[in-house]
């Protein structure tokens, strides 16, 4: 067993003024695992790491224990400094004697010294018995799968291809483009939808690194980050792929306002999408258009804002005002959702153009007038407090994005969660396109309602994330974690002891444990790539078959026994 070199940092007296370092040294010197104890004034100043390293090397000591400030103070930098000097950072452990001891027990030097000794002994137990997890190297497949060829998917595939990664672009439709194909003008630039993605669609056809699979669906997924084995079912039969990363850009649907505001019964009550089609065919002929916002959104069924409907109505209202002389457009809204500077300017533009905005209350929704043909809308204007009847020959209902029913099935295949509405959900707000399953990225309206510009940006962003994930040829499972310095280790099950009860499989939040048949029983196996070392499996394992080599149960037991040990 390699011996341990112990450094006690005085921190320029900050620690020494409370903790009696000399008596601490005397007490710990009796521990057979300790080779040498050095009391130093500082370890974090420039040059200190080099000095410590000289000592470590001179004595040929394998492991290092440092008592000093907390890891949230300077200790991480001390460790990094030592690492730069050539020490293996995994053999260095630290004990917090400053924030966790000297500074909070200033009035009890004796107790503080006792505590410091105990804490150091506990850490010694860990350091002595620490084993390294067996690491595996994962060969990353240098190809990516993009599902959904709408704006988000197209830009993701294009981004990946331009970065040099082969991407497989799958769509259940026959041509790429998604919803943008039917949008005649996009806000706020008034660019026609197909125009906007023309270069991306062209690239899909021309770039040899993009392979487009039309009318194709994913039929099965196996494997893990870096090496997903995906089966596609398409018109040409099944295709088997091995990809390193997956971008889910499956898009969303738009709610059909069945039975709302006379939709389907009264003529000229249409949805935004139908309006786009009328624009496209030039069949739009109206003098007084009324837009109703939040139809089926921000309601009890769908308590969310669909982001795009307000700007969409602004755009179409302005279009009517612009294209038909003398035409009027009214937007009946509950809040105008135009956050940011560009959209707010767009809103101001609409106001200048004479688009009328009337605010209504969710409890008093507008009512449609007219039997067969829309003749008007009656609405209680909450701002002026009067009931108004607006004559109208066209009623446009702004309905929200709703999740695609196929999203949930796909999410199940890829082991990623969907939120309560059915949109894919991310791990943290700060990593908005990454899911809890490494190597799977989400973007576009399948994630959350967004505009086409945002969808394209998200596609690019997902491509960037996927590319930086695929950037290396092989990666060690121990580094597959967002935590700096890799994870603690990964759990591993002792096949001889495992009873196969499946507790670990149930409790693992990353689905890293799996039961495998072995003879006449099942045993648990840990997929090392997926394990993030949260330790839940270890806690629920009834007989300790599941362990983390870095801190196995023997160590834990020893640490606990040492916690309150008095001087031997």
């Amino acid at each position, binding site marked *: 067993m390699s011996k341990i070199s112990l450094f006690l940092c005085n921190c320029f007296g900050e620690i020494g003024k409370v903790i009696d370092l000399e008596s601490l040294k005397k007490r710990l010197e009796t521990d057979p695992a300790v080779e040498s104890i050095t009391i130093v004034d500082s370890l974090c100043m420039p040059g200190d790491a080099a000095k410590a390293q000289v000592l470590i090397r001179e004595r040929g000591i394998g492991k290092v224990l440092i008592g000093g400030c907390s890891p949230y103070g300077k200790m991480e930098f001390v460790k990094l400094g030592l690492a730069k000097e050539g020490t293996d950072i995994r053999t260095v452990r630290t004990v917090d004697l400053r*924030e966790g001891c000297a500074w909070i027990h200033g009035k009890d030097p004796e107790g503080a010294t006792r*505590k410091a000794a*105990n*804490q150091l002994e506990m850490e010694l137990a860990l350091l002595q018995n620490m084993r390294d997890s067996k690491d595996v190297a994962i060969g990353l497949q240098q190809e990516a799968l993009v599902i959904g060829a709408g704006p988000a998917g197209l830009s993701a595939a294009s981004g990946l291809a331009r970065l040099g990664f082969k991407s497989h672009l799958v769509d259940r439709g026959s041509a790429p483009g998604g919803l943008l194909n039917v949008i005649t003008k996009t806000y706020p630039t008034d660019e026609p939808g197909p125009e906007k993605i023309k270069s991306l669609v062209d690239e899909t056809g021309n770039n040899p690194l993009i392979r487009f699979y039309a009318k194709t669906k994913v039929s099965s997924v196996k494997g893990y980050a870096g090496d997903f084995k995906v089966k596609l079912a398409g018109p040409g039969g099944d295709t088997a792929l091995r990809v390193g990363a997956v971008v889910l850009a499956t898009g969303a649907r738009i709610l059909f306002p069945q039975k709302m505001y006379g939709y389907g019964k009264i003529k000229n009550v249409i949805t935004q999408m139908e309006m786009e089609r009328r624009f496209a065919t030039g069949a739009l002929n109206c003098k007084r258009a009324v837009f109703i916002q939040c139809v089926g959104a921000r309601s009890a069924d769908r308590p969310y804002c669909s982001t795009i409907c307000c700007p969409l109505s602004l755009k179409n209202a302005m279009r009517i005002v612009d294209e038909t002389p003398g035409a009027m457009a009214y937007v009946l809204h509950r809040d105008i959702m135009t956050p940011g500077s560009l959209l707010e300017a767009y809103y101001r533009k609409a106001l200048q153009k004479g688009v009328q905005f009337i605010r209504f209350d969710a409890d008093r929704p507008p009512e449609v007038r007219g039997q067969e043909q829309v003749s008007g809308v009656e609405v209680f204007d909450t701002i002026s407090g009067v009931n108004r009847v607006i004559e109208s020959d066209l009623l446009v209902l702004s309905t929200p994005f709703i999740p695609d029913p196929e999203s949930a099935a796909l999410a199940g295949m890829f082991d990623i969660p969907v939120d309560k509405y059915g949109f894919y959900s991310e791990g943290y707000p700060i990593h908005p396109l990454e899911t809890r399953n490494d190597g799977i990225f989400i973007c576009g309206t399948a994630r959350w309602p967004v505009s086409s510009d945002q969808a394209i940006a998200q596609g690019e962003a997902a491509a960037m994330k996927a590319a930086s994930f695929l950037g290396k040829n092989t990666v060690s499972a121990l580094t597959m974690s967002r935590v700096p310095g890799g994870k603690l280790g990964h759990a591993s099950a002792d096949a001889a002891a495992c009873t196969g009860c499946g507790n670990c499989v149930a409790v693992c939040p990353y689905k890293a444990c799996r039961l495998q048949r072995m003879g006449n029983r099942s045993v648990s196996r840990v997929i090392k790539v997926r394990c993030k070392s*949260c*330790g839940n499996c270890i806690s629920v394992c009834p007989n300790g078959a599941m362990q983390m080599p870095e801190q196995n149960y023997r160590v*834990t037991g020893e640490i*606990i026994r040492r916690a*309150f040990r008095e001087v031997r």
Partner: protein
Amino acid sequence: MSADRGNVKILVFACRWCGLIGADGAGRKRIELPSSFRVIPVDCAGYVEPDAVIRAFASGATGVAVLGCHVGGCRFNDANHPALKRLEMLKTLLDTTGIGGNRLLLGFGTAHESHQYADMIVDFHRELEGLPSMASWLSPGQ
């Protein structure tokens, strides 16, 4: 049975993401705390085996505290939910046998709440001082 004044030993399992940082914040503010507790840093509250908590009591701790993240704020995909459920179940058992669930403190909050963590340790220490000694559990002699 005499009260346990002067013999309080608290073993703290603190998650590196919230509990430990909260405790660290208390250190930065130089909040004076009783020196009766020892800290075992863990990566996640999920790492805290109920068996280890029991072992701590068996090894002489008079109180065990588990400090983890906000229930919805776990770094490990809600790994602290099952941890919380388990430990609450353990409290039920401790209550049954009379060791007392109040010897097991669960504090799931955020890293910013250093004052709260400090108060919690101080209050826990005070509460344990008032509890009867655990000696009869540890020395089963007649």
